[in-house]
């Protein structure tokens, strides 16, 4: 289809306007948080609506670490998210090998149960989990959070890794079995190296999930000993709505978001494929 050049240019221009609108829409809220975080808190009430900070300052960032136990919260979040990912990857590598390469009874029933757990509303287990966590003496500890996070991380990692293991050619495993390798040797020496990309993707998505979790963290922690960043940011507040220290909230928000954005940008290809694998296959 040949179009006349003027019309073509108008269409082109409209298209670019559309691209700019989308860019503005997705990036503006984050820019606004960034801008606010660099605004001098004393001037915030005067300059809140300016598009650029007039005299950028690190003041809010300093206040977040000095006035609040934010460093501790960050440490907790890192520990909990790392623990969750390590344990769930370890468990799910074993399961994925069994589900992807072995034949046994009740396999599809088990797959459905795992899929079912992955859509469990967290709130449905909140009451039972609360009593479990207390009974195990894990209330207000990393362990309690790591344990409870298994409910959404584990089904996801098992499911995605299983679909990955299935794609590994059977010959690879059979060769190892013929050579007399035990199942665990086969798994860790032969399968695991091939699985690395899938492990990175699922590990990263699991990490993000645990890093962002709010409901369990809010309910199973009471003090800053184990309180994670989302709870800290969610409950940053002054005595009334008008006293919310938004400069500090935005600084804290930027601190926890930047690492995620960097990770996401580095691994964007893997993430997109991991998300679609997780979505299409459950």
């Amino acid at each position, binding site marked *: 289809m040949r179009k006349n050049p003027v019309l073509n240019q108008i269409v082109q221009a409209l298209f670019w306007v559309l691209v700019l609108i989308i860019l503005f829409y997705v990036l503006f809220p984050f820019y606004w*948080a960034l801008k606010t975080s660099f605004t001098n808190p004393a001037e*915030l009430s005067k300059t809140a609506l300016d598009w650029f900070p007039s005299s950028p300052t690190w003041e809010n960032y300093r206040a977040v670490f000095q006035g609040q136990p934010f460093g501790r919260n960050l440490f907790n979040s890192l520990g909990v998210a790392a623990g969750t990912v390590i344990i769930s990857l370890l468990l799910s590598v*074993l399961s994925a090998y*069994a589900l992807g390469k072995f*034949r046994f009874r009740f396999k599809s029933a088990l797959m459905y149960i795992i899929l079912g757990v992955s859509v469990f509303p967290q*709130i449905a287990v909140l009451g039972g989990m609360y009593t479990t966590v207390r009974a195990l003496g894990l209330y207000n500890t990393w362990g309690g959070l790591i344990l409870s996070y298994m409910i959404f991380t584990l089904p996801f990692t098992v499911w995605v890794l299983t679909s990955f293991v299935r794609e590994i050619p059977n010959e690879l495993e059979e060769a190892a079995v013929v050579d007399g390798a035990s199942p665990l040797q086969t798994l860790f020496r032969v399968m695991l190296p091939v699985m690395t990309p899938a492990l990175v993707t699922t590990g990263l998505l699991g990490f993000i999930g645990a890093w962002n979790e*709010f409901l369990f963290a809010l309910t199973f922690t009471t003090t800053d000993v184990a309180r994670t960043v989302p709870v800290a940011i969610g409950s940053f507040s002054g005595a009334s709505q008008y006293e919310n220290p938004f400069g500090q909230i935005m600084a804290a928000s930027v601190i*926890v978001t930047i690492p995620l954005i960097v990770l996401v940008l580095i691994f964007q290809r893997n993430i997109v494929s991991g998300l679609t694998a997780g979505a*299409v296959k459950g």
Partner: protein
Amino acid sequence: MATSTPSTARRPGRNRSVEATRSRTAIWLLLPTIIVLALVAGYPLLRTIYLSFTEYNINTDPAPKGIGFDNYAFRLDDGTLSGLLTDPQWWQAVWTTVKFTVSSVVLETLLGLGMALVINSKFRARGLLRTAILVPWAVPTVVSAQMWNWMYQDNFGIISQWGRSLGLLEAGQSFVANPNTALGALVAVDVWKTAPFMALLILAGLQSIPSDMYEAADVDGASKVRQFFRLTLPLLTPALLVALIFRTLDALRVFDMPYIVKGNAPETMTMSIYARQQMIDNAQFGYGSAVSVLIFLIIMIFTVIYVTSLRVRFD
């Protein structure tokens, strides 16, 4: 779902004892996962169901006391029904959640489709745009709630400022503080956060459509609009459907974002917020568990519909 029953067909002629050994090995490999899932999903779920048939104030009662179905419904002395099933607050929470879910999922899908179509066309800044739309997805939900909370802030929020210049708001008003617009304001936050996710899933679907189909349509002289409705949309349906169902399940469970922006405010109380309020804030573990059980049933019914409808499509 096509891959849910994989073909692990081994060479024929393997003898039975090898198969038996392998199936024993499989159980051992799966055991840790099964134990953990039983501990974090199976037991708490059963415990919640059990508690829903009890009266149990976690702060004052030493132990749960069985009361049958009374949390769900019981007859008062004058014969009228009471309990969760006739609790107006619960039904209001259900209605709020449904409104939230339907409007945010519809808007996300339309917006995600639009974004995906733009990114799918060939232009120079395509990679940049594709990367940029990952930003809202990467922002933690709690952070996005606080970012928007600030933009909605009545005096100093930029959106309130825009609202004032459009004549929609008076000084000191905001979209989230007004009970009539609060839910809509929350939908906007959810849409911002998740439309990119939709766009990515839809984009994956778009890119799996072979380009020679479009070439054939061009040769046949079909217009771009006609191509979209006759070719793109039907081929995209499976991907769209999956994305839609996923987002619906998420939205039905929503807790964190509305809770951070509005707390336990009745006009934006979702089902999950109501359950947690009963259980944790009011310490009514019995009643709160009954709420949780109903939420669980709603989600599970939806999931069963989803699994069966997907099987129909992919098997």
